[in-house]
């Protein structure tokens, strides 16, 4: 196309500046949300990965156990293998810091003579304390209380060489002396290093290690070495490459990241719908102009290219704005919340903003794609018009005569239903997302048929304005399509998310009720950290006045299945206590001699291991595999990797471990929890243990839940905002293009206010139809989210609930806002100008 001819098309964007600006804004917001989510996650992942690479150092392979670790005898066996050139044992402990609520520090106990060969970046450096007379002895590194902090840890804890760091071991505070630093640890990696023997002693982990980093002998392949080593490892211990370990850690957040990306994509899709509305209106308004260009000899292909180029230009410029906005949003997010968007996967990770050329390009292209997709159908409509007819004035109504598309409209959700039944691909609900898209398309396609259908069934109230509005929408349903498409899309998204989040929250609430039956909870640290309650402490608490009985819970991580992935073992009383939130099986299975002990597995574990009630599961305990029978499947929203519950008595007898992480206290009737809390504070563990009432725990967990969905709410709000933009631009454009019609109505005696009311009624009716379809579509999407996407992504189920009051309030607000927006947007059409416009026909 002649470059001058591009100008004919692109200049029209400038002519309708408001619509162009809103389309740009919609695309920019969609791109910005999507890209910033990606940038934040990419930076956080990168930081996490960098941390893991630092810890893996130059290792070819890693032998990894679960958090509790495995016997260091394994190290001796492995180190002597001919495949192994260097082996470096590591004990990793998440040490709880007693004076900081729930905060932990990763402490690596390393063999200082071995680590230099494999993970040199972890080597500590002795520093002389400020003000000390003599220079520090290099052998300080081997002292049992010496700990070395990375620069980030030193900064965040505010500790320098010579100062004391207190860490919790059980309910005992262990004072460690900061003897220097780990200078090679990255600026953002908060960690501590100490001698492995000292770490084992300080944290009561004698004879245990959690990892062995290996360098292989020259000429030995990783695959072969891994196979041979696997054969000599005890159950529950895995051999993996550092890349495997990294992908295992990063894979945990994959579903969450993809879900956020999909949400952002829907915001961009809504932006595309807005471009569609704006372009369709523009094509209708320029019908004569385009027909004239055709008469002058503009061929159809060039016309189509020109109109699609308008959409592409909108997408490109919107995309550029979006990219800039995304980087600003990301910088803001890093400054305010760090790398975690609420779900906790990247808590404590402090990534820094970096330019990501490929991601940026992808989102720029997506912006252009949204613009092109939005302009596609209007361009096709323009190319199909008959120039000779379109040259005549008044032909605009032709363009609004959108035929119903019942077949496609009903086929889409049916196909969506079929797709929703298909299994995930690579653990991702690809067909679920496609089903969501199809439902959305179906809801939008219902608009042209549904609008006249609804209008024909509206009672004639005798109001002239209502009659005029009904007549207009019945005769020109295309107008409803143009105005309503954004409403349907954004309402469907908002409604689906509202239903899903409400269902989820309700299910979490029920789940908490079942999981928190005690009157008071006690713990030394989070389940993965170094605090625990020993039997003596538990016994002391159980004997306190007012305590009727206690329910101990032990959390342990184990590696399971052929891939030996890490999951949680929960040992607690089940049959003698209040239950688990079961979705299958029983809490009280029949017992008998020779029957394997019972196990209750979480939904995630059932999915991952494809296990069902009645089958058996082998759990590695104390270095040996023990067979259990699956007697129930329970709902667990806390552990996405999977969890298995066994009776604490079975656990204790098989593992010999008598430690407790959480203690639930059932109080005698009439006992105030506060008095028991005071007694515990006075007599047990010197105030180190954490105590929570179930109501506090519930509030804390629901707060975390709400924080997790904060980003979701934000995206929802943006999508609804974009939908309202759609209503506003459409009615502004419609009002302008109907100036003559309004002029005639003014001549016939309608007052300016009544024209405004007419526009508001049309907008309210259009939006009402859109909202009803949005509610139906949103309900269907929520069903897909609840029944397909959530179980396939996160392996958890929930009970569907309808937030009726919220949905009613939302629908009415949207209709009211749309009416108001249309009234404001049509202000120009109600001016004196409209009366004069009639004269153009005289």
């Amino acid at each position, binding site marked *: 196309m*002649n*470059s*001058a*001819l591009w*100008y*004919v098309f692109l*200049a*029209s964007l*400038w*002519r309708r500046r408001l619509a162009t600006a809103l389309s740009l804004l919609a695309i920019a917001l969609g791109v910005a949300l999507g890209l910033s989510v990606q940038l934040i996650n990419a930076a956080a992942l990168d930081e996490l990965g960098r941390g893991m690479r630092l810890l893996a150092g130059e290792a070819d392979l890693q032998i990894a156990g679960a958090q509790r670790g495995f016997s260091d005898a394994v190290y001796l066996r492995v180190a002597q293998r001919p495949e192994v050139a260097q082996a470096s044992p590591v004990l990793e402990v998440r040490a709880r810091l007693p004076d900081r609520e729930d905060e932990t520090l990763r402490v690596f106990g390393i063999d200082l003579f071995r680590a230099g060969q494999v993970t040199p970046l972890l080597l500590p450096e002795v520093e002389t304390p400020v003000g000390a007379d003599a220079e520090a002895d290099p052998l300080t590194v081997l002292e049992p209380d010496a700990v070395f902090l990375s620069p980030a840890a030193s900064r965040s804890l505010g500790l320098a060489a010579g100062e004391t760091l207190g860490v919790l071991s059980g309910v005992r505070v262990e004072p460690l002396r900061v003897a220097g630093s780990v200078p090679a640890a990255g600026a953002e990696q908060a960690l501590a290093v100490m001698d492995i023997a000292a770490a084992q002693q300080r944290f009561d982990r004698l004879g245990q290690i959690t990892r062995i980093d290996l360098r292989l002998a020259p000429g030995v392949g990783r695959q072969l070495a891994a196979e041979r080593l696997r054969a000599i490892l005890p159950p529950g211990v895995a051999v993996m490459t550092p890349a495997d370990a990294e992908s295992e850690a990063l894979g945990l957040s994959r579903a969450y990241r993809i879900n956020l990306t999909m949400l952002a994509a829907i915001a961009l899709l809504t932006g595309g719908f807005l471009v569609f509305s704006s372009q369709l209106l523009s094509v209708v308004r320029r019908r*004569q*102009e385009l027909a*004239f*260009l*055709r*008469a*002058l*000899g*503009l*061929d*159809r*292909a060039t016309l189509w290219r020109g109109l699609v180029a308008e959409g592409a230009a909108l997408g490109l410029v919107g995309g550029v704005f979006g990219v800039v906005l995304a980087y600003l949003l990301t910088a803001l997010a890093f400054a305010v919340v760090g790398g975690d968007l609420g779900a906790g996967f990247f808590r404590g990770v402090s990534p820094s903003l970096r330019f990501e050329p490929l991601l940026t390009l992808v989102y720029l292209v997506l912006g252009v794609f949204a613009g092109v997709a939005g302009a596609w159908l209007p361009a096709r409509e323009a190319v199909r018009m*008959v*120039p*000779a007819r379109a*040259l005549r*004035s008044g032909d605009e109504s032709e363009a609004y005569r959108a035929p119903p598309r019942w077949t496609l409209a009903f086929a889409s959700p049916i196909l969506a239903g079929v797709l929703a039944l298909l299994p995930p691909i690579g653990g991702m609900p690809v067909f679920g997302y496609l089903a969501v898209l199809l439902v959305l398309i179906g809801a939008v396609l219902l608009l042209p048929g549904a609008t006249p259908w609804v209008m024909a069934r509206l009672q004639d109230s005798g109001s002239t304005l209502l009659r005029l509005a009904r007549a207009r929408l019945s005769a020109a349903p295309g107008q409803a399509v143009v105005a309503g498409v954004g409403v349907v899309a954004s309402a469907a998204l908002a409604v689906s998310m509202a239903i899903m989040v409400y269902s989820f929250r309700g299910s979490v609430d029920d789940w908490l009720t079942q999981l928190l039956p005690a009157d008071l909870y006690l713990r030394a640290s989070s389940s993965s950290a170094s605090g625990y309650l020993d039997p003596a402490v538990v016994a002391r608490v159980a004997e306190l006045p007012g305590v009727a009985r206690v329910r101990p819970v032990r959390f342990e991580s184990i590696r399971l299945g052929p891939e030996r992935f890490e999951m949680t073992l929960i040992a607690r009383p089940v049959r003698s206590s209040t239950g688990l939130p079961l979705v299958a099986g029983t809490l009280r299975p029949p017992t008998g001699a020779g029957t394997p002990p019972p196990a209750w597995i979480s939904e995630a574990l059932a999915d991952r291991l494809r296990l069902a009630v009645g089958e058996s599961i082998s759990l590695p305990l104390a270095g040996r595999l023990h067979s259990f029978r699956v007697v129930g499947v329970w709902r667990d929203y806390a552990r996405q990797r999977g969890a298995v519950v066994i009776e604490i008595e079975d656990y204790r007898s098989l593992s010999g471990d008598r430690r407790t992480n959480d203690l639930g206290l059932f109080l005698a009737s009439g006992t105030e929890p506060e008095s028991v809390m005071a007694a515990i504070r006075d007599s047990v563990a010197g105030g180190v243990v954490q105590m929570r009432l179930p109501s506090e725990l519930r509030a804390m967990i629901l707060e975390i839940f709400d924080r997790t969905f904060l980003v979701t709410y934000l995206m929802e709000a943006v999508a609804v905002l974009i939908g309202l933009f759609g209503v506003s631009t459409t009615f502004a454009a419609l009002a302008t293009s109907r100036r003559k019609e309004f002029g005639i109505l003014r001549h016939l005696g309608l007052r300016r206010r009544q024209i405004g009311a007419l526009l508001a009624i049309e907008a309210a009716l259009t939006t009402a139809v859109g909202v009803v379809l949005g509610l139906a579509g949103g309900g269907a999407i929520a069903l897909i989210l609840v029944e397909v996407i959530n179980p396939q992504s996160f392996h958890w189920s929930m009970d569907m609930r309808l937030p009726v009051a919220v949905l009613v309030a939302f629908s009415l607000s949207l209709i009211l806002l749309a009416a108001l927006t249309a009234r404001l947007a049509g202000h120009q059409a109600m001016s004196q100008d409209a009366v004069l416009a009639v004269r153009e026909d005289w």
Partner: protein
Amino acid sequence: MLSIENLTKRFAASPEPPLFEKVSLALVPGESVAIMGDSGVGKSTLLNCIAGLEPVDGGRIALRGVELTGLDEDALAGLRRRELGFVFQACHILPHLNLAQNVALPLWLLGVAKGPADERARAMLEQVGLASRADDWPRHLSGGETQRVAIARALIHEPGVVLCDEPTGNLDPERAAGVLELLLGRIREAGAIGILVTHSRAAAGHADRILRLTHGGLIAAS
């Protein structure tokens, strides 16, 4: 040379008699003809048929020896770009282009670069007395000025035929006469063929010949 022989046009799938039939007309370069007729007889449709914007149901149209009736959509668009100019009652001036750009539009469609096209458009605007307004926007023009822009645009690419559909329908008689003199004068000077559809006897009087379109064909006006 424009030659129309036995042209017939019906409404699609209509059992009614054709809109018009046996329309024949031959015009040589530099000649202009005014076509009059009752409302609904198909005057504008005849112009659309000549422009290849509406299909015909019988007969043939040939322009400079090229048979229009056998051409496909793209070939017809190409022919319109090169050989036809249009002046309508509603001038269809694009509101987002200034006057020079509006006039240059047919040249842009022919692939002429923006610079030379702009130069020729300004020269053309000079010929219609609007040289000083070349950079103005259409919204600042009066009805007569708008029609002069449309005339400049219709002639800038030196078309073989200029089709004019009620070009002065919006103007008072005095202004209409001025515009028609300018329009037909320029058509003659350019050696083009002018076909003018009008209701106005006075307007038709500016053409070399006056014909009346009936359902049965073109007849000389009395």
